[in-house]
Protein backbone atom coordinates (compact mmCIF):
# COMPACT_ATOMS: atom_id res chain seq x y z
CA UNK A 1 0.00 0.00 0.00
CA UNK A 2 2.80 2.38 0.97
CA UNK A 3 4.40 1.81 -2.43
CA UNK A 4 1.45 3.47 -4.14
CA UNK A 5 1.37 6.47 -1.84
CA UNK A 6 2.61 9.77 -3.16
CA UNK A 7 5.74 11.39 -1.83
CA UNK A 8 3.83 13.94 0.22
CA UNK A 9 2.01 11.30 2.24
CA UNK A 10 5.18 9.28 2.70
CA UNK A 11 7.08 12.33 3.90
CA UNK A 12 4.36 13.14 6.44
CA UNK A 13 4.49 9.59 7.74
CA UNK A 14 8.30 9.56 7.81
CA UNK A 15 8.20 12.76 9.86
CA UNK A 16 6.38 10.78 12.53
CA UNK A 17 9.07 8.11 12.40
CA UNK A 18 7.28 5.63 10.15
CA UNK A 19 10.06 3.31 9.04
CA UNK A 20 8.11 1.68 6.24
CA UNK A 21 7.26 5.06 4.70
CA UNK A 22 10.87 6.16 4.84
CA UNK A 23 11.86 2.79 3.41
CA UNK A 24 9.61 3.35 0.41
CA UNK A 25 11.17 6.75 -0.18
CA UNK A 26 14.64 5.21 -0.03
CA UNK A 27 13.67 2.43 -2.39
CA UNK A 28 12.01 4.87 -4.78
CA UNK A 29 14.94 7.27 -5.03
CA UNK A 30 18.08 5.34 -4.14
CA UNK A 31 19.02 4.75 -7.78
CA UNK A 32 18.42 8.36 -8.77
CA UNK A 33 20.34 9.58 -5.73
CA UNK A 34 23.22 7.34 -6.65
CA UNK A 35 23.11 8.53 -10.28
CA UNK A 36 23.15 12.18 -9.24
CA UNK A 37 25.97 11.56 -6.78
CA UNK A 38 27.87 9.59 -9.40
CA UNK A 39 27.45 12.40 -11.90
CA UNK A 40 29.26 14.66 -9.42
CA UNK A 41 31.89 12.36 -7.97
CA UNK A 42 32.54 9.95 -10.83
CA UNK A 43 33.46 7.29 -8.30
CA UNK A 44 31.32 4.44 -7.06
CA UNK A 45 32.46 4.65 -3.43
CA UNK A 46 31.95 8.40 -3.19
CA UNK A 47 28.60 8.23 -4.97
CA UNK A 48 27.45 5.53 -2.59
CA UNK A 49 28.54 7.47 0.47
CA UNK A 50 27.00 10.70 -0.75
CA UNK A 51 23.70 9.01 -1.65
CA UNK A 52 23.42 7.17 1.66
CA UNK A 53 24.38 10.15 3.75
CA UNK A 54 21.92 12.30 1.84
CA UNK A 55 19.03 10.08 2.85
CA UNK A 56 20.06 10.45 6.49
CA UNK A 57 20.46 14.21 6.15
CA UNK A 58 17.07 14.39 4.45
CA UNK A 59 15.48 12.43 7.29
CA UNK A 60 16.98 14.72 9.91
CA UNK A 61 15.78 17.80 8.01
CA UNK A 62 12.39 16.55 6.87
CA UNK A 63 10.69 19.54 8.47
CA UNK A 64 12.64 21.79 6.11
CA UNK A 65 11.05 20.11 3.10
CA UNK A 66 8.39 22.74 2.52
CA UNK A 67 6.73 20.93 -0.37
CA UNK A 68 6.69 17.25 0.61
CA UNK A 69 5.17 16.34 -2.76
CA UNK A 70 8.40 17.65 -4.29
CA UNK A 71 10.55 15.51 -2.05
CA UNK A 72 12.58 14.10 -4.95
CA UNK A 73 13.86 17.47 -6.13
CA UNK A 74 14.67 18.50 -2.58
CA UNK A 75 16.49 15.22 -2.00
CA UNK A 76 18.50 15.56 -5.21
CA UNK A 77 19.65 19.01 -4.11
CA UNK A 78 20.93 17.48 -0.89
CA UNK A 79 22.63 14.68 -2.82
CA UNK A 80 24.30 17.11 -5.19
CA UNK A 81 25.57 19.32 -2.41
CA UNK A 82 26.71 16.37 -0.37
CA UNK A 83 28.56 14.89 -3.33
CA UNK A 84 30.20 18.21 -4.11
CA UNK A 85 31.31 18.59 -0.52
CA UNK A 86 32.65 15.06 -0.58
CA UNK A 87 34.69 15.77 -3.66
CA UNK A 88 35.84 19.18 -2.42
CA UNK A 89 36.87 18.22 1.05
CA UNK A 90 37.66 14.58 0.52
CA UNK A 91 35.84 14.02 3.75
CA UNK A 92 36.24 10.83 5.64
CA UNK A 93 33.64 8.25 4.96
CA UNK A 94 31.26 7.90 7.88
CA UNK A 95 29.21 5.12 6.52
CA UNK A 96 30.34 1.58 6.22
CA UNK A 97 30.85 0.75 2.58
CA UNK A 98 28.49 -1.77 1.08
CA UNK A 99 30.82 -4.49 -0.12
CA UNK A 100 30.24 -5.61 -3.66
CA UNK A 101 28.90 -9.11 -3.21
CA UNK A 102 29.28 -11.99 -5.56
CA UNK A 103 26.98 -12.05 -8.50
CA UNK A 104 24.45 -14.83 -8.73
CA UNK A 105 25.63 -15.64 -12.22
CA UNK A 106 29.36 -15.92 -12.68
CA UNK A 107 30.38 -14.09 -15.85
CA UNK A 108 33.03 -15.50 -18.10
CA UNK A 109 36.53 -13.92 -17.97
CA UNK A 110 36.03 -12.38 -21.43
CA UNK A 111 32.77 -10.89 -20.37
CA UNK A 112 34.34 -9.48 -17.20
CA UNK A 113 37.14 -7.89 -19.19
CA UNK A 114 34.73 -6.42 -21.69
CA UNK A 115 32.55 -4.98 -18.96
CA UNK A 116 35.56 -3.44 -17.23
CA UNK A 117 36.76 -1.87 -20.45
CA UNK A 118 33.32 -0.60 -21.22
CA UNK A 119 33.04 0.93 -17.78
CA UNK A 120 36.39 2.59 -18.08
CA UNK A 121 35.38 4.11 -21.42
CA UNK A 122 32.06 5.25 -20.06
CA UNK A 123 33.59 6.81 -16.98
CA UNK A 124 36.01 8.69 -19.18
CA UNK A 125 33.25 9.79 -21.53
CA UNK A 126 31.03 10.88 -18.67
CA UNK A 127 33.87 12.73 -17.00
CA UNK A 128 34.15 14.94 -20.06
CA UNK A 129 30.54 16.04 -19.85
CA UNK A 130 29.44 19.04 -17.81
CA UNK A 131 27.97 18.01 -14.46
CA UNK A 132 24.43 18.99 -15.38
CA UNK A 133 24.54 16.97 -18.59
CA UNK A 134 25.93 14.00 -16.73
CA UNK A 135 23.18 14.19 -14.18
CA UNK A 136 20.44 14.50 -16.77
CA UNK A 137 21.68 11.72 -19.04
CA UNK A 138 22.07 9.39 -16.07
CA UNK A 139 18.63 10.19 -14.70
CA UNK A 140 16.99 9.88 -18.10
CA UNK A 141 18.76 7.01 -19.79
CA UNK A 142 19.89 5.05 -16.76
CA UNK A 143 17.09 5.63 -14.28
CA UNK A 144 14.31 6.10 -16.81
CA UNK A 145 13.06 9.44 -15.52
CA UNK A 146 11.01 11.39 -18.04
CA UNK A 147 11.86 14.91 -19.21
CA UNK A 148 8.99 16.34 -17.23
CA UNK A 149 10.03 14.50 -14.08
CA UNK A 150 13.60 15.72 -14.39
CA UNK A 151 12.43 19.24 -15.11
CA UNK A 152 10.05 19.24 -12.15
CA UNK A 153 12.41 17.59 -9.74
CA UNK A 154 15.52 19.52 -10.65
CA UNK A 155 13.63 22.77 -11.09
CA UNK A 156 14.69 23.22 -14.71
CA UNK A 157 12.68 24.17 -17.80
CA UNK A 158 11.74 21.10 -19.85
CA UNK A 159 13.46 22.60 -22.90
CA UNK A 160 16.70 22.92 -20.97
CA UNK A 161 16.48 19.28 -19.94
CA UNK A 162 15.97 18.18 -23.53
CA UNK A 163 18.82 20.34 -24.70
CA UNK A 164 21.19 19.01 -22.03
CA UNK A 165 20.16 15.47 -22.85
CA UNK A 166 20.72 15.97 -26.55
CA UNK A 167 24.21 17.42 -26.09
CA UNK A 168 25.11 14.86 -23.45
CA UNK A 169 24.24 11.96 -25.74
CA UNK A 170 26.03 13.51 -28.65
CA UNK A 171 29.16 14.13 -26.62
CA UNK A 172 28.97 10.68 -25.10
CA UNK A 173 28.80 9.02 -28.50
CA UNK A 174 31.63 11.11 -29.85
CA UNK A 175 33.90 10.29 -26.96
CA UNK A 176 33.02 6.62 -27.04
CA UNK A 177 33.49 6.43 -30.81
CA UNK A 178 36.91 7.97 -30.47
CA UNK A 179 38.02 5.71 -27.63
CA UNK A 180 41.02 3.48 -28.48
CA UNK A 181 39.23 0.37 -27.22
CA UNK A 182 36.38 0.96 -29.53
CA UNK A 183 38.71 1.72 -32.42
CA UNK A 184 40.52 -1.53 -31.70
CA UNK A 185 37.29 -3.43 -31.72
CA UNK A 186 36.19 -1.85 -34.94
CA UNK A 187 39.47 -2.67 -36.63
CA UNK A 188 39.22 -6.23 -35.38
CA UNK A 189 42.30 -6.13 -33.13
Amino acid at each position, binding site marked *: MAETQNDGELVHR*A*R*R*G*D*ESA*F*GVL*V*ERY*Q*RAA*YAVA*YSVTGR*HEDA*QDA*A*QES*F*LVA*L*RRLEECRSPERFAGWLMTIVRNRARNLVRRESLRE*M*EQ*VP*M*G*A*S*SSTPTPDRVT*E*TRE*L*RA*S*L*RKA*LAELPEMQREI*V*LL*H*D*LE*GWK*HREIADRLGLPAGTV*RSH*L*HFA*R*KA*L*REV*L*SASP*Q*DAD*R*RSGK
Partner: protein
Amino acid sequence: MSQLEKGLEGATDELGRDIEVAELLGSLSPSVEDPTYWMRFKAQVLRAASTELARRRMMADVTVADVLTSWARAIVPTAVLAAALAGMILLRAHTVPIAAPARVEELLVAGMEGETIPTTLSRTEAETQIAFAAERF
Protein backbone atom coordinates in the same frame (compact mmCIF):
# COMPACT_ATOMS: atom_id res chain seq x y z
CA MET B 1 29.59 -7.20 -31.54
CA SER B 2 30.31 -5.49 -28.26
CA GLN B 3 27.78 -3.71 -26.11
CA LEU B 4 29.53 -0.48 -26.92
CA GLU B 5 29.27 -1.02 -30.67
CA LYS B 6 25.65 -2.03 -30.35
CA GLY B 7 24.99 1.05 -28.35
CA LEU B 8 26.65 3.32 -30.83
CA GLU B 9 24.94 1.76 -33.79
CA GLY B 10 21.56 1.86 -32.15
CA ALA B 11 21.95 5.33 -30.78
CA THR B 12 19.67 7.89 -32.23
CA ASP B 13 19.12 11.57 -31.74
CA GLU B 14 15.61 10.90 -30.55
CA LEU B 15 15.02 12.30 -27.11
CA GLY B 16 12.93 9.40 -25.94
CA ARG B 17 14.65 6.92 -23.68
CA ASP B 18 17.59 5.59 -25.61
CA ILE B 19 17.65 1.90 -24.81
CA GLU B 20 21.17 1.38 -26.13
CA VAL B 21 22.61 4.28 -24.18
CA ALA B 22 20.65 3.07 -21.18
CA GLU B 23 22.23 -0.35 -21.54
CA LEU B 24 25.65 1.20 -21.81
CA LEU B 25 25.12 3.38 -18.78
CA GLY B 26 23.54 0.45 -16.99
CA SER B 27 26.94 -1.18 -16.84
CA LEU B 28 27.89 1.54 -14.35
CA SER B 29 25.13 0.50 -11.98
CA PRO B 30 26.43 -1.33 -8.91
CA SER B 31 23.64 -3.87 -9.36
CA VAL B 32 25.34 -5.24 -12.49
CA GLU B 33 27.88 -7.07 -10.39
CA ASP B 34 25.72 -7.46 -7.34
CA PRO B 35 21.97 -7.95 -7.92
CA THR B 36 21.30 -7.54 -4.19
CA TYR B 37 23.09 -4.21 -4.06
CA TRP B 38 20.01 -1.96 -3.88
CA MET B 39 18.34 -4.16 -1.33
CA ARG B 40 21.40 -3.92 0.88
CA PHE B 41 21.74 -0.21 0.16
CA LYS B 42 18.23 0.36 1.49
CA ALA B 43 18.80 -1.91 4.48
CA GLN B 44 21.97 -0.04 5.35
CA VAL B 45 20.28 3.36 5.11
CA LEU B 46 17.40 2.16 7.27
CA ARG B 47 19.79 0.72 9.82
CA ALA B 48 21.65 4.02 10.03
CA ALA B 49 18.35 5.89 10.22
CA SER B 50 16.87 3.75 12.98
CA THR B 51 17.91 6.10 15.79
CA GLU B 52 16.44 9.14 14.10
CA LEU B 53 13.25 7.26 13.22
CA ALA B 54 12.92 6.08 16.82
CA ARG B 55 13.43 9.65 18.05
CA ARG B 56 10.72 10.84 15.70
CA ARG B 57 8.32 8.14 16.87
CA MET B 58 9.00 9.11 20.46
CA MET B 59 8.48 12.78 19.68
CA ALA B 60 5.18 11.98 17.98
CA ASP B 61 4.05 9.97 21.03
CA VAL B 62 5.29 12.58 23.45
CA THR B 63 3.48 15.28 21.59
CA VAL B 64 0.08 13.69 22.22
CA ALA B 65 0.94 12.68 25.76
CA ASP B 66 2.50 16.06 26.34
CA VAL B 67 -0.69 17.87 25.52
CA LEU B 68 -2.65 15.73 27.95
CA THR B 69 0.01 16.05 30.62
CA SER B 70 0.29 19.77 30.19
CA TRP B 71 -3.48 20.05 30.53
CA ALA B 72 -3.36 17.92 33.63
CA ARG B 73 -0.48 19.93 35.03
CA ALA B 74 -2.21 23.22 34.57
CA ILE B 75 -5.83 22.37 35.10
CA VAL B 76 -5.84 19.84 37.93
CA PRO B 77 -3.96 21.94 40.52
CA THR B 78 -5.96 25.01 39.56
CA ALA B 79 -9.20 23.10 39.91
CA VAL B 80 -8.11 21.68 43.28
CA LEU B 81 -7.16 25.13 44.52
CA ALA B 82 -10.39 26.64 43.31
CA ALA B 83 -12.39 23.87 44.95
CA ALA B 84 -10.51 24.32 48.22
CA LEU B 85 -11.11 28.05 48.22
CA ALA B 86 -14.76 27.60 47.39
CA GLY B 87 -15.11 25.06 50.19
CA MET B 88 -13.46 27.37 52.68
CA ILE B 89 -15.68 30.25 51.68
CA LEU B 90 -18.77 28.10 52.00
CA LEU B 91 -17.70 26.78 55.41
CA ARG B 92 -16.99 30.24 56.71
CA ALA B 93 -20.28 31.50 55.49
CA HIS B 94 -22.09 28.86 57.55
CA THR B 95 -20.09 29.23 60.79
CA VAL B 96 -20.00 33.02 61.20
CA PRO B 97 -23.06 34.08 63.21
CA ILE B 98 -25.20 36.73 61.80
CA ALA B 99 -24.78 39.83 63.87
CA ALA B 100 -28.02 40.73 65.63
CA PRO B 101 -29.09 44.25 65.07
CA ALA B 102 -28.22 46.38 68.09
CA ARG B 103 -31.10 47.86 69.92
CA VAL B 104 -31.34 51.61 70.22
CA GLU B 105 -31.15 51.47 73.99
CA GLU B 106 -27.94 49.53 73.96
CA LEU B 107 -26.38 51.94 71.53
CA LEU B 108 -27.32 54.86 73.73
CA VAL B 109 -25.64 53.46 76.82
CA ALA B 110 -22.60 52.20 75.13
CA GLY B 111 -19.51 53.61 76.88
CA MET B 112 -21.47 55.02 79.76
CA GLU B 113 -20.56 52.68 82.51
CA GLY B 114 -21.84 53.38 86.04
CA GLU B 115 -24.61 55.47 84.81
CA THR B 116 -27.87 53.79 85.01
CA ILE B 117 -30.88 54.43 83.11
CA PRO B 118 -33.24 56.33 85.26
CA THR B 119 -36.05 54.20 86.45
CA THR B 120 -39.15 55.26 84.97
CA LEU B 121 -41.22 56.98 87.45
CA SER B 122 -44.65 55.99 88.02
CA ARG B 123 -47.11 57.91 86.13
CA THR B 124 -48.35 59.68 89.25
CA GLU B 125 -44.88 60.69 90.42
CA ALA B 126 -43.79 61.89 87.12
CA GLU B 127 -46.57 64.21 86.87
CA THR B 128 -45.08 66.52 89.45
CA GLN B 129 -42.10 68.70 88.84
CA ILE B 130 -40.67 68.03 92.28
CA ALA B 131 -40.68 64.44 91.87
CA PHE B 132 -38.99 64.82 88.56
CA ALA B 133 -36.33 67.17 90.04
CA ALA B 134 -35.60 64.82 92.85
CA GLU B 135 -34.66 62.24 90.40
CA ARG B 136 -30.94 61.52 90.66
CA PHE B 137 -28.62 59.75 88.42
